[in-house]
Protein backbone atom coordinates (compact mmCIF):
# COMPACT_ATOMS: atom_id res chain seq x y z
CA UNK A 1 0.00 0.00 0.00
CA UNK A 2 1.52 3.33 -1.05
CA UNK A 3 1.71 6.29 1.34
CA UNK A 4 -1.05 8.29 -0.37
CA UNK A 5 -3.52 5.39 -0.19
CA UNK A 6 -2.58 4.74 3.43
CA UNK A 7 -3.09 8.42 4.35
CA UNK A 8 -6.48 8.50 2.57
CA UNK A 9 -7.55 5.29 4.28
CA UNK A 10 -6.50 6.58 7.74
CA UNK A 11 -8.37 9.85 7.13
CA UNK A 12 -11.47 8.01 5.93
CA UNK A 13 -11.41 5.58 8.87
CA UNK A 14 -11.13 8.46 11.35
CA UNK A 15 -14.03 10.36 9.71
CA UNK A 16 -16.25 7.27 9.82
CA UNK A 17 -15.33 6.42 13.40
CA UNK A 18 -15.99 9.98 14.58
CA UNK A 19 -19.37 9.94 12.80
CA UNK A 20 -20.20 6.58 14.42
CA UNK A 21 -19.46 8.02 17.84
CA UNK A 22 -16.38 5.91 18.56
CA UNK A 23 -14.24 7.74 21.17
CA UNK A 24 -11.07 9.38 19.80
CA UNK A 25 -8.70 7.16 21.83
CA UNK A 26 -10.34 3.94 20.65
CA UNK A 27 -10.52 5.30 17.10
CA UNK A 28 -6.74 5.87 17.12
CA UNK A 29 -6.06 2.29 18.30
CA UNK A 30 -8.61 0.76 15.85
CA UNK A 31 -7.11 2.72 12.95
CA UNK A 32 -3.59 1.48 13.72
CA UNK A 33 -4.77 -2.12 14.06
CA UNK A 34 -6.91 -2.02 10.91
CA UNK A 35 -4.08 -0.48 8.86
CA UNK A 36 -1.55 -3.06 10.06
CA UNK A 37 -4.06 -5.85 9.42
CA UNK A 38 -4.74 -4.61 5.90
CA UNK A 39 -0.99 -4.28 5.24
CA UNK A 40 -0.51 -7.90 6.29
CA UNK A 41 -3.36 -9.07 4.05
CA UNK A 42 -2.04 -7.32 0.94
CA UNK A 43 1.62 -8.17 1.56
CA UNK A 44 1.59 -11.25 -0.65
CA UNK A 45 -0.40 -9.63 -3.48
CA UNK A 46 1.23 -7.91 -6.44
CA UNK A 47 -1.88 -6.10 -7.66
CA UNK A 48 -4.89 -5.07 -5.60
CA UNK A 49 -8.01 -3.30 -6.74
CA UNK A 50 -10.06 -0.77 -4.76
CA UNK A 51 -12.64 -3.51 -4.12
CA UNK A 52 -9.95 -5.82 -2.70
CA UNK A 53 -8.73 -3.07 -0.40
CA UNK A 54 -12.30 -2.36 0.71
CA UNK A 55 -12.82 -6.07 1.39
CA UNK A 56 -9.71 -6.25 3.58
CA UNK A 57 -10.73 -3.10 5.47
CA UNK A 58 -14.20 -4.59 6.13
CA UNK A 59 -12.66 -7.85 7.36
CA UNK A 60 -10.30 -6.02 9.73
CA UNK A 61 -12.93 -3.48 10.90
CA UNK A 62 -15.32 -6.30 11.75
CA UNK A 63 -12.90 -7.44 14.49
CA UNK A 64 -13.16 -4.12 16.33
CA UNK A 65 -16.52 -2.53 15.48
CA UNK A 66 -19.37 -4.10 13.51
CA UNK A 67 -20.99 -0.73 12.69
CA UNK A 68 -17.74 0.51 11.15
CA UNK A 69 -17.45 -2.64 9.03
CA UNK A 70 -21.09 -2.30 8.00
CA UNK A 71 -20.65 1.35 6.94
CA UNK A 72 -17.66 0.32 4.79
CA UNK A 73 -19.70 -2.49 3.29
CA UNK A 74 -22.71 -0.35 2.34
CA UNK A 75 -21.19 3.11 1.82
CA UNK A 76 -21.67 2.99 -1.97
CA UNK A 77 -24.95 1.08 -1.83
CA UNK A 78 -27.10 3.53 0.16
CA UNK A 79 -28.46 5.43 -2.86
Amino acid at each position, binding site marked *: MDTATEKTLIKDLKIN*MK*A*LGIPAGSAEIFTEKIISGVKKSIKSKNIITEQDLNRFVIAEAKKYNTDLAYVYKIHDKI*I
Partner: protein
Amino acid sequence: MSFFASLEIVFLAMLIHAFLQLVPSVFTIFYHYASGKKSSRVADDFSIFYILGVEFFSVLMFILIYLLFFNIFIGEINLRSTVFPWIMAGVLVALAILSFFAYFKKGRTTELFISRKIARQLTASAKNVKNRSDAFVLGLTTGVFELIFTLPLYILATTAIMEIDNFPRQIFGFLYIIAVVAPIMVYLVLFRRGYNLAEIERLRIKNKTFFRTIETIGYLVLACVMLIGF
Protein backbone atom coordinates in the same frame (compact mmCIF):
# COMPACT_ATOMS: atom_id res chain seq x y z
CA MET B 1 -63.81 18.84 -8.12
CA SER B 2 -65.24 18.82 -4.61
CA PHE B 3 -63.34 20.24 -1.66
CA PHE B 4 -62.88 16.77 -0.17
CA ALA B 5 -61.64 15.24 -3.44
CA SER B 6 -59.03 18.04 -3.67
CA LEU B 7 -58.10 17.45 -0.07
CA GLU B 8 -57.74 13.71 -0.67
CA ILE B 9 -55.48 14.26 -3.67
CA VAL B 10 -53.26 16.73 -1.84
CA PHE B 11 -52.91 14.52 1.25
CA LEU B 12 -52.31 11.34 -0.76
CA ALA B 13 -49.65 13.11 -2.84
CA MET B 14 -48.07 14.34 0.42
CA LEU B 15 -48.09 10.84 1.87
CA ILE B 16 -46.45 9.28 -1.19
CA HIS B 17 -43.90 12.09 -1.37
CA ALA B 18 -43.02 11.62 2.31
CA PHE B 19 -42.24 7.93 1.68
CA LEU B 20 -39.92 8.48 -1.29
CA GLN B 21 -36.37 7.60 -0.37
CA LEU B 22 -33.82 9.45 -2.51
CA VAL B 23 -33.81 12.73 -0.55
CA PRO B 24 -33.48 11.00 2.87
CA SER B 25 -30.86 8.55 1.51
CA VAL B 26 -28.63 11.39 0.36
CA PHE B 27 -29.27 13.15 3.66
CA THR B 28 -28.08 10.20 5.77
CA ILE B 29 -24.78 9.99 3.84
CA PHE B 30 -24.35 13.76 3.96
CA TYR B 31 -25.03 13.98 7.71
CA HIS B 32 -22.77 11.02 8.52
CA TYR B 33 -19.77 12.48 6.70
CA ALA B 34 -20.46 16.08 7.80
CA SER B 35 -20.52 15.02 11.46
CA GLY B 36 -17.38 12.90 10.91
CA LYS B 37 -15.42 15.67 9.23
CA LYS B 38 -16.63 18.61 11.31
CA SER B 39 -18.99 18.26 14.30
CA SER B 40 -22.63 17.48 14.99
CA ARG B 41 -23.32 21.20 15.40
CA VAL B 42 -21.91 21.98 11.94
CA ALA B 43 -23.75 18.96 10.47
CA ASP B 44 -27.00 20.32 11.96
CA ASP B 45 -26.24 23.73 10.49
CA PHE B 46 -25.59 22.22 7.04
CA SER B 47 -28.76 20.12 7.39
CA ILE B 48 -30.86 23.28 7.57
CA PHE B 49 -29.42 24.36 4.22
CA TYR B 50 -29.93 20.90 2.73
CA ILE B 51 -33.59 21.09 3.85
CA LEU B 52 -33.85 24.61 2.43
CA GLY B 53 -32.48 23.32 -0.89
CA VAL B 54 -35.15 20.59 -1.01
CA GLU B 55 -37.86 23.09 -0.02
CA PHE B 56 -36.67 25.61 -2.60
CA PHE B 57 -36.90 22.99 -5.33
CA SER B 58 -40.45 22.06 -4.22
CA VAL B 59 -41.55 25.70 -4.25
CA LEU B 60 -39.99 26.14 -7.70
CA MET B 61 -41.88 23.11 -8.96
CA PHE B 62 -45.19 24.41 -7.57
CA ILE B 63 -44.66 27.83 -9.19
CA LEU B 64 -43.49 26.33 -12.48
CA ILE B 65 -46.43 23.93 -12.73
CA TYR B 66 -48.86 26.66 -11.74
CA LEU B 67 -47.51 28.93 -14.47
CA LEU B 68 -47.45 26.19 -17.11
CA PHE B 69 -50.87 24.76 -16.32
CA PHE B 70 -52.87 27.83 -15.53
CA ASN B 71 -51.23 30.62 -17.51
CA ILE B 72 -49.57 29.13 -20.59
CA PHE B 73 -50.93 25.73 -21.63
CA ILE B 74 -54.44 25.68 -20.32
CA GLY B 75 -55.50 29.13 -19.28
CA GLU B 76 -59.20 29.04 -18.67
CA ILE B 77 -59.82 25.52 -19.98
CA ASN B 78 -61.51 23.31 -17.40
CA LEU B 79 -59.22 20.37 -16.57
CA ARG B 80 -62.23 18.14 -15.90
CA SER B 81 -63.43 18.35 -19.48
CA THR B 82 -60.11 17.11 -20.90
CA VAL B 83 -58.33 13.78 -20.90
CA PHE B 84 -56.13 15.10 -18.08
CA PRO B 85 -57.54 12.80 -15.34
CA TRP B 86 -57.13 9.73 -17.60
CA ILE B 87 -53.56 10.61 -18.53
CA MET B 88 -52.64 11.24 -14.90
CA ALA B 89 -54.34 8.02 -13.75
CA GLY B 90 -52.36 6.09 -16.38
CA VAL B 91 -49.10 7.69 -15.26
CA LEU B 92 -49.93 6.92 -11.61
CA VAL B 93 -50.66 3.25 -12.34
CA ALA B 94 -47.35 3.03 -14.23
CA LEU B 95 -45.59 4.60 -11.24
CA ALA B 96 -47.32 2.17 -8.87
CA ILE B 97 -45.96 -0.75 -10.91
CA LEU B 98 -42.51 0.89 -11.07
CA SER B 99 -42.56 1.54 -7.31
CA PHE B 100 -43.28 -2.06 -6.55
CA PHE B 101 -40.85 -3.67 -8.98
CA ALA B 102 -38.10 -1.14 -9.59
CA TYR B 103 -37.97 1.54 -6.88
CA PHE B 104 -35.53 -0.44 -4.73
CA LYS B 105 -32.91 -2.66 -6.31
CA LYS B 106 -32.72 -6.27 -5.16
CA GLY B 107 -30.48 -7.31 -2.26
CA ARG B 108 -29.98 -6.28 1.33
CA THR B 109 -29.27 -2.66 0.53
CA THR B 110 -31.35 0.46 -0.07
CA GLU B 111 -30.01 1.00 -3.61
CA LEU B 112 -32.59 2.94 -5.60
CA PHE B 113 -33.88 3.13 -9.15
CA ILE B 114 -31.45 5.80 -10.34
CA SER B 115 -28.51 4.89 -12.58
CA ARG B 116 -25.34 3.76 -10.83
CA LYS B 117 -23.39 6.66 -12.36
CA ILE B 118 -25.78 9.22 -10.85
CA ALA B 119 -25.83 7.32 -7.54
CA ARG B 120 -22.01 7.41 -7.39
CA GLN B 121 -22.01 11.12 -8.21
CA LEU B 122 -24.64 11.89 -5.56
CA THR B 123 -22.77 9.80 -2.96
CA ALA B 124 -19.52 11.64 -3.77
CA SER B 125 -21.28 15.03 -3.53
CA ALA B 126 -22.94 14.07 -0.24
CA LYS B 127 -19.58 12.97 1.19
CA ASN B 128 -17.86 16.20 0.21
CA VAL B 129 -20.22 18.90 1.47
CA LYS B 130 -17.88 21.65 2.66
CA ASN B 131 -20.16 24.58 3.32
CA ARG B 132 -23.77 25.72 3.50
CA SER B 133 -24.05 26.47 -0.22
CA ASP B 134 -22.85 22.93 -1.06
CA ALA B 135 -25.57 21.56 1.23
CA PHE B 136 -28.20 23.81 -0.37
CA VAL B 137 -27.19 22.77 -3.92
CA LEU B 138 -27.13 19.09 -2.88
CA GLY B 139 -30.71 19.36 -1.58
CA LEU B 140 -31.81 21.05 -4.76
CA THR B 141 -30.14 18.58 -7.15
CA THR B 142 -31.41 15.57 -5.19
CA GLY B 143 -34.94 16.85 -5.79
CA VAL B 144 -34.22 16.96 -9.54
CA PHE B 145 -33.13 13.30 -9.66
CA GLU B 146 -36.35 12.16 -7.99
CA LEU B 147 -38.54 14.02 -10.49
CA ILE B 148 -39.64 10.88 -12.32
CA PHE B 149 -41.59 9.89 -9.18
CA THR B 150 -42.46 13.37 -7.92
CA LEU B 151 -43.46 15.31 -11.04
CA PRO B 152 -46.96 13.75 -11.29
CA LEU B 153 -47.40 14.39 -7.56
CA TYR B 154 -46.46 18.06 -7.95
CA ILE B 155 -48.83 18.37 -10.94
CA LEU B 156 -51.73 16.76 -9.08
CA ALA B 157 -51.14 18.64 -5.85
CA THR B 158 -50.91 21.98 -7.68
CA THR B 159 -54.07 21.39 -9.73
CA ALA B 160 -55.95 20.10 -6.67
CA ILE B 161 -54.83 23.07 -4.56
CA MET B 162 -55.91 25.48 -7.31
CA GLU B 163 -59.37 23.89 -7.32
CA ILE B 164 -59.87 24.53 -3.61
CA ASP B 165 -62.25 27.39 -2.95
CA ASN B 166 -63.35 29.06 0.27
CA PHE B 167 -60.13 28.06 2.02
CA PRO B 168 -56.65 29.59 2.04
CA ARG B 169 -54.77 27.58 -0.61
CA GLN B 170 -51.36 28.63 0.72
CA ILE B 171 -51.91 26.43 3.78
CA PHE B 172 -52.00 23.29 1.60
CA GLY B 173 -48.92 24.38 -0.34
CA PHE B 174 -47.16 24.99 2.96
CA LEU B 175 -48.25 21.61 4.36
CA TYR B 176 -47.04 19.86 1.20
CA ILE B 177 -43.61 21.45 1.49
CA ILE B 178 -43.43 20.34 5.13
CA ALA B 179 -44.36 16.77 4.09
CA VAL B 180 -41.53 16.74 1.51
CA VAL B 181 -38.92 17.27 4.24
CA ALA B 182 -40.68 15.20 6.93
CA PRO B 183 -38.49 12.09 6.37
CA ILE B 184 -35.33 14.21 6.59
CA MET B 185 -36.56 15.60 9.91
CA VAL B 186 -37.19 12.04 11.15
CA TYR B 187 -33.63 10.97 10.26
CA LEU B 188 -32.23 14.19 11.73
CA VAL B 189 -34.01 13.44 15.02
CA LEU B 190 -32.67 9.85 14.92
CA PHE B 191 -29.10 11.13 14.37
CA ARG B 192 -29.54 13.64 17.21
CA ARG B 193 -30.83 10.86 19.49
CA GLY B 194 -27.62 8.91 18.98
CA TYR B 195 -28.44 6.63 16.05
CA ASN B 196 -25.60 6.25 13.56
CA LEU B 197 -25.58 5.59 9.81
CA ALA B 198 -25.25 1.81 10.27
CA GLU B 199 -28.27 1.62 12.59
CA ILE B 200 -30.38 3.91 10.38
CA GLU B 201 -29.45 1.91 7.28
CA ARG B 202 -30.41 -1.38 8.99
CA LEU B 203 -33.72 0.22 9.95
CA ARG B 204 -34.32 1.35 6.37
CA ILE B 205 -33.51 -2.07 4.94
CA LYS B 206 -35.89 -3.65 7.44
CA ASN B 207 -38.68 -1.31 6.31
CA LYS B 208 -37.92 -1.45 2.58
CA THR B 209 -40.99 -3.52 1.74
CA PHE B 210 -43.18 -1.25 3.87
CA PHE B 211 -41.98 1.87 2.01
CA ARG B 212 -42.49 0.16 -1.33
CA THR B 213 -45.98 -1.06 -0.42
CA ILE B 214 -47.13 2.34 0.86
CA GLU B 215 -45.87 4.01 -2.34
CA THR B 216 -47.53 1.44 -4.58
CA ILE B 217 -50.87 1.59 -2.75
CA GLY B 218 -50.63 5.38 -2.58
CA TYR B 219 -50.15 5.73 -6.34
CA LEU B 220 -52.99 3.28 -7.05
CA VAL B 221 -55.43 4.99 -4.67
CA LEU B 222 -54.45 8.37 -6.11
CA ALA B 223 -55.17 7.04 -9.62
CA CYS B 224 -58.65 5.95 -8.47
CA VAL B 225 -59.30 9.28 -6.76
CA MET B 226 -58.25 11.02 -9.97
CA LEU B 227 -60.83 9.11 -12.02
CA ILE B 228 -63.64 9.34 -9.49
CA GLY B 229 -63.00 12.75 -7.95
CA PHE B 230 -61.95 14.83 -10.96
